[in-house]
């Protein structure tokens, strides 16, 4: 018998659980579930929620010829700790109601009767939970409460003896139960995700199914679905899905920026059409914690999709999914999503931290400019970020030192140099110490940090030296009150000598006096550790009355600097005999080269070089290891070494002699 089946929704004609505009627009959504929206497609995606999550959806069906929008449903999601999440969906709009044409029976001897049969399928509640095993892999479990109701209304004309009157009787039978789904989500990188969902894996029925309803039960067979999503470019997402029910979809999302997303997708079902049978188009816009979406779902063949269907006996076997089935009509869907609680989304991740060496307290200032280490930071968001790294060592830094902003493209990782402004307390570290260095990364202006990393920091003792002559100058302390006092006292004691000296040779004479005074008080002794990595500060050398060549050079340089005489270290590392590496010094007499003969008639005893005012002057080499023999011998030895190393050996141009200016 041919008849007409009316397909109705509640309160309108039709409804599916297409409960989010993004889902409709993208079409293939399984691998892109990342919050409570449409979580039943892949509950494992719930783990990607930020914190509290709320979604409301409404829709309209323009092809049904009815104006206005109806409420579809609400979802709530919450992420617990780092690795668990749960969601609940209330979707009164996820229901379908089929009205089978009345059956009229007028055959005598019965009274005329008409039977209206109405079948309703609904999934008003869904729940889902997810657990993340690691940052790449998560699993989810979902359950949809399904209700199937058969309502039979019998209209009967009762012909009595005295009167004829209509009679209406309503009989309703119902079957309820939970359909359980399970899913996994694998995201090996931010550029790719794979989802697997098993639907109807388990059915938990509440009681027996009434016999009258048996013919109208929806299929309970399990369906498997695989879904893929990949970020083809920085702004383009592509997605595809296919199921064992021969349904599938492809779609894409373009995010040009400013929070805008443009989506489009095609729906396939081999049972319906060899080509796409529907398309979804959508636009989304997000700002801070709010996201709006609108999508239009259009079916190319409108048969059975306008609220009625010429059909024979009603056969529900084709309805494998209340979400999307042969009776679903065109629709416009509006979705609002809001995030509450901790709405900060981590956009940057510290992959690793590398320290470039230990910290030498003597040269602690350099780390304000020179990196102490690097942090490899990855942009795990879909937008370019401007990330700043901060480094902090408790006790030895007053506050974290922040790097300049570094732009990182989505999915990329960049090494950000870490600098550190230490405080004076670090100079009091006497022996090798290990401290915890805290590295934080901040890519969101309003938030304190996106990620945190701890790394051990080796802090050497205050007298430790890395052997680099460039850092030896950080032991030079011309502004130390003890150093200033010492040099002033010595010069004051030789005031008469200085008054008689030519003013042009004043610096030369002062240096000679200071050195000769040291010669009476200091002696050369080997490094206490028999190595080149221990250097005394000038006050220590003066107090201990001795030191090795590094200590004595540092001490004499500090004294000269304290009275305004420029100095330089000469670092010699003989290529054939590196074990004989050595340091002596040069100081600037300030004498013009054309008066050089007043310093010495032998030009080999001095060096012509420019000072920091770019004026060429006469510099004197001094070998401090012979401090006990006085200035004259130290000068002779220094000059001889310089001539041999630099003029004959060509050490400066061959790179094994370095001259490092101190001030």
């Amino acid at each position, binding site marked *: 018998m041919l008849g007409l089946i009316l397909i109705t929704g509640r309160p309108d004609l039709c409804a599916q659980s297409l409960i989010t505009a993004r889902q409709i627009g993208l079409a293939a959504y399984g691998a892109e579930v990342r919050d409570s929206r449409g979580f039943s497609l892949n509950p494992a995606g719930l783990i990607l929620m930020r914190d509290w999550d709320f979604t409301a959806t409404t829709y309209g069906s323009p092809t049904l010829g009815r104006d206005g929008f109806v409420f579809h449903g609400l979802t709530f999601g919450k992420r617990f700790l780092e690795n668990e999440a749960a969601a609940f969906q209330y979707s009164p709009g996820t229901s379908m109601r089929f009205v089978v044409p009345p059956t009229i029976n007028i055959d005598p001897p019965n009274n005329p009767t008409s039977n209206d049969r109405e079948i309703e399928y609904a999934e008003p509640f869904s729940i889902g939970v997810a657990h993340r095993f690691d940052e790449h892999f998560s699993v989810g479990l979902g359950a949809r409460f399904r209700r199937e109701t058969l309502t039979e209304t019998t209209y009967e004309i009762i012909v009595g003896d005295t009167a004829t009157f209509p009679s209406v009787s309503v009989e309703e039978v119902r079957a309820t139960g939970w359909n359980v789904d399970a899913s996994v989500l694998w995201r090996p990188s931010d550029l790719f995700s794979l989802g697997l969902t098993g639907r109807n894996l388990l059915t938990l029925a509440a009681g027996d199914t009434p016999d009258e309803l048996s013919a109208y039960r929806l299929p309970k067979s399990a369906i498997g679905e695989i879904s893929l999503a990949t970020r083809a470019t920085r702004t383009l997402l592509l997605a595809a899905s296919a199921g064992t029910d021969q349904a599938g979809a492809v779609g894409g999302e373009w995010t040009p920026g400013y929070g805008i997303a443009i989506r489009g997708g095609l729906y396939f079902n081999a049972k319906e059409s060899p080509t796409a049978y529907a398309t979804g188009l959508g636009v989304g816009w997000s700002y801070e914690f709010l996201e709006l979406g609108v999508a239009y779902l259009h079916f190319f063949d409108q048969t059975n999709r306008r609220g009625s269907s010429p059909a024979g006996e009603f056969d529900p076997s084709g309805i494998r999914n209340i979400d999307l089935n042969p009776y679903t009509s065109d629709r416009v869907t509006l979705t609002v999503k809001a995030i509450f609680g901790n709405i900060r989304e981590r956009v940057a991740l510290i992959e690793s931290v590398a320290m470039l060496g230990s910290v030498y307290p003597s040269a602690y200032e*350099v780390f304000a400019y020179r990196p102490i280490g690097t942090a490899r930071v990855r942009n795990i968001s879909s937008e370019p970020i401007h990330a700043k790294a901060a480094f902090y060592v408790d006790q030895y830094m007053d506050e974290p030192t922040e790097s300049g902003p570094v732009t990182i493209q989505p999915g990329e990782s960049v090494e950000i140099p870490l600098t550190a402004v230490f405080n004076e307390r670090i100079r009091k570290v006497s022996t090798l110490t290990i401290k915890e260095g805290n590295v934080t990364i901040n890519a969101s202006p309003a938030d304190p940090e996106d990620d945190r990393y701890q790394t051990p920091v080796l802090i050497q003792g205050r007298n430790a030296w890395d052997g680099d002559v460039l850092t030896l100058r950080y032991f030079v302390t*011309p502004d130390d009150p003890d150093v200033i006092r010492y040099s002033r006292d010595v010069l004051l004691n030789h005031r008469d000598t200085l008054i008689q000296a030519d003013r042009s040779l004043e610096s030369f004479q002062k240096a000679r006096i200071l050195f000769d005074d040291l010669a009476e008080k200091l002696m050369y002794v080997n490094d206490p550790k028999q190595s080149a990595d221990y250097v005394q500060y000038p006050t220590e050398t003066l107090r201990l009355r001795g030191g090795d060549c590094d200590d004595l050079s540092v001490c004499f340089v500090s004294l000269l600097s304290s*009275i305004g005489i420029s100095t330089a270290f000469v670092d010699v590392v003989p290529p054939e005999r590196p074990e004989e590496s050595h340091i002596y010094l040069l100081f600037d007499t300030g004498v013009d080269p*054309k008066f050089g003969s007043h310093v010495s008639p*032998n030009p080999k005893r001095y060096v012509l*070089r420019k000072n920091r005012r770019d004026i060429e002057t006469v510099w004197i080499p001094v070998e401090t290891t012979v401090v006990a023999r006085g200035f004259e011998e130290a000068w002779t030895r220094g000059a001889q070494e310089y001539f041999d190393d630099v003029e004959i050996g060509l050490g400066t141009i061959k790179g094994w002699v370095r001259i490092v200016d101190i001030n």
Partner: protein
Amino acid sequence: MRFSVVVLLVAMTSMALGGDITVKRLQGDVRVRHGVTEHWSAVAVGDVLRPNDSVKTGKGGSTVLELIREDSGTARAVTLPPEVIVDVSDMRTLTQEELMLKLTMEKVRSSSYQWKNDELRMPDAAVVHGQGSGSEEELNENDRATGRLQLNGARVLYENGFYSTCILRAMEVFRHYPWMAESFSDRLMVAEALAECDLRGEALAEYGAISRMEGLGEEERMLVRERMDAMK
């Protein structure tokens, strides 16, 4: 092809003389100054000079030194005429690369340059301000005669083919005795030595500087122009 020619030239100029230097003949006033000492002492035939020694000949004095090549062991004689000062270490040939580096370092041997390449600068030390304590008497410039002897020594280097050390020695003398940099013949020697070292750009720059010197006669200017044209 051009590359191979340059390599050949470098190879040719890198034959250094680093062996013993012996005094073979003496005439008149010839003295030696050892190392960084300040006094000149007598020298005798057969003395072996060290690389850090200097030799000075007085008026009418001259000497013949024998240089033994370190690489081949062959001997070579260098005659020092009267009134020259020559550093023994200058009687060698630097490679073109060594010479270029030396010349470049002369230009960058500046503290300010080094500070530009440094991240952190030490605080300026305390400086004694106010009236200086020393006398205000003007110093006398370096003895000009000594400068002349040294520049004569540079010419001996040039004439014996030690072009690279001739250049460096002459430039150092100019720094000690700025007035000598006004000498046309000495500047021309430096330019020609640069050309001999195949440092064409440097030689042209030196010829250009000479041509801008004041007080040049027409013949001198023409000579410089010819040399420059020959290099182009």
